């Protein structure tokens, strides 16, 4: 039986369909979750996809982080459920307190939409085990508020504990501190990144198929655990 991965849709979510497709490409079963759900339907992992949840009112991800479905997601993550946040999903996980730091307006104030190379800095997380440390992948970046920030103490901890999972392989176009593109929780089960691996799973529609590795990583772990 294939592992079941929940994909959350909030009002304003855009990339849930691609995220569900990526789960299926990697051999998993995608389970649609709605922002008002309070039952995660027993899924084995959750993807919080990108978009502009609740119109990005207040701050990007701020309202979604307090929506009904996020209560059980936070509880499950505390018990070790693998959770991946992509773009707005990353912002939501930061706002929900599952990931450290915050995402603010790009330093150049422009929305950035292009392919970008990332370096996998930690292939030991639930979502990166199919990569090797230092591997470079090409995925799209499309965000206006993607500049990762955290205070010096938090940055030092992230760097020291291997919680920087993805780094831009060029100076961060959005001004992200330490060129950080993605981070993880201390246990490596919750990962968030600004670029979009779910848009890079098929050569027909994406710049590469590199993004599939995140989804295959978690599915391999779930299958091995079953």
């Amino acid at each position, binding site marked *: 039986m294939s592992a079941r991965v929940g994909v959350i849709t909030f009002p304003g979510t855009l990339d849930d369909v691609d995220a569900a497709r990526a789960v299926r490409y990697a051999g998993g079963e995608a389970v649609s979750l709605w922002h008002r759900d309070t039952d995660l339907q027993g899924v084995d992992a959750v993807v919080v996809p990108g978009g502009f949840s609740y119109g990005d009112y*207040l701050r990007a991800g*701020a309202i979604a982080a*307090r929506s009904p479905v996020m209560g059980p997601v936070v509880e499950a993550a505390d018990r070790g459920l693998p959770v991946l946040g992509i773009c707005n999903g990353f912002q939501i996980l930061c706002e929900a307190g599952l990931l*450290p730091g*915050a995402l*603010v307006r790009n330093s150049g104030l422009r929305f950035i939409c292009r392919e970008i190379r990332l370096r996998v800095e930690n292939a030991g997380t639930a979502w990166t085990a199919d990569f090797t440390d230092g591997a470079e992948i090409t995925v799209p970046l499309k965000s206006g508020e993607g*500049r990762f920030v955290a205070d010096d103490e938090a940055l030092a901890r992230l760097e020291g504990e291997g919680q920087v999972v993805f780094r831009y392989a060029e100076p961060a176009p959005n001004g992200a501190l330490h060129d950080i593109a993605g981070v993880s929780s201390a246990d490596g089960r919750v990962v968030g990144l600004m670029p979009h691996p779910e848009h890079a799973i098929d050569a027909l529609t994406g710049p590469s198929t590199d993004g599939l590795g995140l989804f295959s990583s978690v599915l391999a772990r779930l299958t091995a655990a079953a």
Partner: protein
Amino acid sequence: MVGVARVIVDVLPKAEILDPQGQAVARAMGRLGVTGVADVRQGKHFVLEVDDDVSDAELERIAGTLLANPVMEEWVVRRGSTVSDGAQA
């Protein structure tokens, strides 16, 4: 009846966080011919109408967990004048 008072919450990006919007505004001020504005930080101003029995601690929790993100913002909560008093109706 419980009275209702206006509560103001002002939220600003922390000084150490780059505020490119504030910088863009500051540059535009120069184009108006006004010199002497050294820095601008752009934030948010919330006006809440709050029952008097809502405690300072609850207001602080609203501000610090929802209206502002403590990772990147600082905030000030101020209780203002009474908006209306149900007892006088």
